[in-house]
């Protein structure tokens, strides 16, 4: 049994179709100029040229998720008696994420600590996570704003993936990371990867070197608390922020959510939907008071959560994978890497 695999370019569709037999396969699809993860179908325009605009986090952590629905039922004899029937929806299908990037997967490892390890598993998350296999593509070249290497990751980081693919001239080199991954080596069209190992490693090394490093490395202990607490610093840094949710909703490591109940006359649903600390409502209290009324306070929280609070709670792990999306897609180009390096530089 081979250690690694190789999948010729022309075998991809067959490979995905095979996967599709027992699971829902999501792949990056090009729509106009936008790349977005969509369920596999041969007609769709698979695109691996660059990271998708939005990470595949919604596959495991849907943007809006009906946790359960409920129905009121009347007892016909006595219209005053009402009973409630609750129905939960956790029978998720097996899923495969194909062609996401190491920085995307790292997001799931960030969630795992919170939703599985820390305080008892969140069934909705865990169920999907367990049933999902992740086939990651190592990045051939960095995109504008990428800084994964500065955060200990890299274009070929294996953490969290089941398989790491590396795009080569004639096809894709497969390195299994988990048992799920190993199983894929026996997929139809898969060849032994041994003779492609070297080419792949060179590719991965070149990519690693190409990624820009705004700072050599970062740990939450190095950041200046003093500057972090200084309002003027943030006003200066992010007064231009328009306080939209693009950064958080595109972020592979952001995992905040909100609950809402939606009710009709007879029935209702409890919905868990993404929330963003950049939104005014995120901290708005019923009284009307808002502890984070201004935009810079909200942005400070975002940086704080990723580079201070999370690491403090989860032995030093930074909750940012350096995918650069928040920089690339920010309406006003707020650059988190620049802000972090400013927090890093000595007082």
């Amino acid at each position, binding site marked *: 049994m081979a250690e690694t695999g190789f999948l010729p370019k022309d075998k991809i569709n067959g490979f995905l179709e095979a996967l599709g037999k027992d699971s829902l396969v999501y792949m990056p699809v090009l729509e106009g100029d936008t790349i977005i993860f*969509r*369920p596999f179908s041969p007609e769709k325009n698979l695109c691996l040229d660059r990271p998708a605009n939005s990470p595949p986090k*919604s*596959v495991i952590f*849907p*943007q809006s998720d009906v946790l359960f629905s409920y129905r009121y039922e009347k007892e016909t004899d006595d219209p005053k008696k009402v009973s409630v029937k609750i129905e939960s929806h956790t029978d998720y299908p097996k899923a495969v994420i194909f062609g996401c990037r190491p920085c995307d997967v790292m997001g799931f490892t960030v969630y795992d600590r919170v939703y599985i390890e820390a305080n008892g598993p969140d069934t909705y998350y865990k169920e999907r996570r367990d049933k999902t296999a992740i086939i990651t593509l190592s990045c051939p070249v960095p995109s504008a704003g990428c800084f994964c290497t500065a955060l200990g990751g890299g274009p070929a980081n294996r953490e969290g993936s089941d398989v790491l693919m590396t795009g080569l001239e004639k096809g894709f080199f497969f390195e299994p990371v988990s048992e799920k991954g190993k199983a894929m080596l026996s997929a139809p069209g898969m060849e032994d990867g041994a003779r492609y190992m070297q080419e792949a490693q060179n590719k991965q090394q070149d990519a690693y070197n190409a990624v820009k490093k705004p700072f050599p490395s970062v740990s939450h202990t190095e950041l200046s608390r003093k500057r972090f607490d200084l309002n003027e610093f943030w006003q200066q840094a992010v007064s231009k922020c328009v306080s939209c949710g693009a950064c958080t909703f595109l972020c592979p490591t952001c995992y905040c959510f909100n609950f809402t109940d939606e009710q009709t006359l*007879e029935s209702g649903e409890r919905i868990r939907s993404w929330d963003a600390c950049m939104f005014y409502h995120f901290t708005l209290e019923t009284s009307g008071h808002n502890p984070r009324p201004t935009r810079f306070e909200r942005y400070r929280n975002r940086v704080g959560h990723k580079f201070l609070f999370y690491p403090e709670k989860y032995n030093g792990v930074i909750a940012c994978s350096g995918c650069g999306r928040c920089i690339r897609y920010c309406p006003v180009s707020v650059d988190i890497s620049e802000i972090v390096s400013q927090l890093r530089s000595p007082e």
Partner: protein
Amino acid sequence: MPEIATQELRVVGFLCNWCSYGGADTAGVSRFKQPTDLRIIRVPCSGRVDPLFVVKALLNGADGVLVSGCHPRDCHYSDGNFYARRRLEMLKRLLPFLGIDERRFYYTWVSASEGARWQQTVTEFTNRIHELGPLHIKKEATP
């Protein structure tokens, strides 16, 4: 809750209390027979009808929406229907751009005394919606 009878389509009407709702009453008092698809929502004035109500209805299952107020100059609140006229006209012209047949939305003026005009409006509009058939807007979204 009985399901919508198969031959019926969903037609929603926003009627101002003073003229058109009264006109519908008059039609009733005069026993002017009408199709039964229409469901009437009473508002104080056509000026109260935010075009978004029409959109909301159409996106959420209505096959046709009808808004009716006092004739221009006869508004109970003197100006309400003048605002309505501009805003609803704007919406009517936008709908086809979205791919929704503008004939699914109709706004008009019926006074409290115009029972016959009301009967004619409801009948013709309902028939029109039946010609156009149900409005299909895709409902599911990919995660």
